[in-house]
């Protein structure tokens, strides 16, 4: 009886993802900036305009970000700009 192990080769990238704890959500939006992120889906701007008006009415600062098309992922630079320029983000995902 054959006792040698059988070998298969790994078809995956063999990458191991690193997991980081999610930043806890702010207790309050007082004094915070909320990023409003338009990923390019239809009518996202309409939705975010409405949300922005509501947030500003409550005295919350907002910052608008957008990528030109929903078909392609956001660039690392854009994600970095959002991460450093705001305390929370609302992403308008779908139409």
């Amino acid at each position, binding site marked *: *009886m*054959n*006792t*040698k*192990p*059988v*070998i*298969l*080769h*790994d*078809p*995956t*990238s*063999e*990458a191991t993802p690193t997991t980081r704890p999610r930043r806890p959500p702010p207790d309050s939006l007082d004094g915070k900036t909320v990023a409003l992120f338009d990923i390019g889906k239809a009518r996202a701007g309409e939705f975010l305009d409405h949300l922005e008006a509501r947030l500003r009415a409550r005295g919350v600062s907002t910052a608008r970000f957008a990528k030109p*098309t*929903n*078909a*392609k*992922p956001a660039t690392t630079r854009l994600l970095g700009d959002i991460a450093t320029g705001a305390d929370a983000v609302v992403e308008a995902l*779908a139409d």
Partner: protein
Amino acid sequence: MSSVTPTATPTPHFVAVVKDDCETCQLIGPVLGEIAAAGHRLTVYWQDDGTFLDPALVVVDDRELVHSFRLGVETVPTLIRCDSENGPETRPSRRTDQPRAAGWIRSEWRALTGLPGLGDGLPRYRPGCGSLSVEPGVAEALQVRHGHTGIRARDIRLDPGADLVEACFDRGWTDGLPVVPPTPERVLRMLAGTRRNPGEIVGDVPPNLAPCTVEKVAINAVLAGCRPEYMPVVLTALEAALDPGFTLHGVTCSTCFSSPVVIVNGPIAKRIGMNAGLNALGQGNRANATIGRALNLVVRNVGGGRPGEIDRATLGSPGKVGFCFAEDETDGDWEPLSVSRGISAGRSAVTVFAGDGIQGVTDQKARTPGELTRSLAMALIAVGHPKLCEWAPAVLVLSPEHHAIYREAGWGRRRITGALHRALLRHGSDLVSGAGGVAEGMPLSRKDEKIPKFHPEALLVVRAGGPAGLFSAILAGWPGGRLLEESHPVTLEIDE
């Protein structure tokens, strides 16, 4: 004064590798006796049956083919001169650098042995036969058992007797169908299907943007069930899908139905046995079935595009397992898709299109190009939604009988495509949101326009299918391609 010990000239040690099932080996049997009789040291390795050899010879059973492999023998008979006292056995690694003669070329055997009368009376030349050590399947097994495979991918070691197919399922490597377990032998065989370096990076595969080597492509091609000769197509299809213009990330992660549809043109399609005829879009042909599957398995396993995870398809489509076919180029009047997209005639190429499943179009009554064009246009209107224009691209797969209606009227690809675009100009008032009691539709601002169903480059026409049947097929495309710069088909020549 120092003394120098003269170095003794090494005694040549000859090694011959033969097999019984080879007429040339049988022919040179007496020659081996002549070499031994001349005082040369000679060891004869036999691969299948040594009873045909002179019993006076020093013979070694090499049915395991280990010696043949280590000597790098590709042809029998092969005569090798080893300038080593102990012969070739002290050298465990595979080598082919010793002087040797393969087959029977009398002058070469005489030069190698220094015996001018060797083989007198025999023909001057007889070709040899293939060594059993290089037979398909055997060569890779010997490489794995006795050599270094060079495969860099991680080894997964399983207990002997383990169910390998289930092991692949357990590790999440499959698309839901069983896969071919990627053993080292199979991976080596697959890599032999390309001249490219196994370590070469083909590109970064989304969504994880993981670097993908030729070797990883080969492993996934094994899983998919490809034959080695499909590798150039699989590699080119992947390169095309990784072109930024194709937007593979979006195609993979979208809620829509699409995945890469691979359309193959040129001589390679026939050479690897692809189907462009009967049931071209269906099952039953290994190349059609596995090439597209290999591409999708690369996206799954290397890129991490798994359904229900980052692949967010609402419904998906059967084509997401794999969708690949060849264009029928048997009609010399038809301009192949690849040529229409800039590839030289006679060259092999791959076009990737982000497509859904198949919508059949039946028209058995049209007899003129005009009738057929209007009819096909009616069906094409349904792509995406009948009230959405400039939304999703499409491929029209024109069957030979439908194409014949055009061909007999002298219409070629460009005229057909142009006529379809004209027939697909729609009145905005019929399309705007709310028209016909349907909320879906174009913006009200376009109600007075004539709106083309497709952008100019967004309708591809391909000829394929069996000889009988007034049926064509529409492959609707990914709406992410509603703007050409967002996603568009990509055509690349195959480096064969």
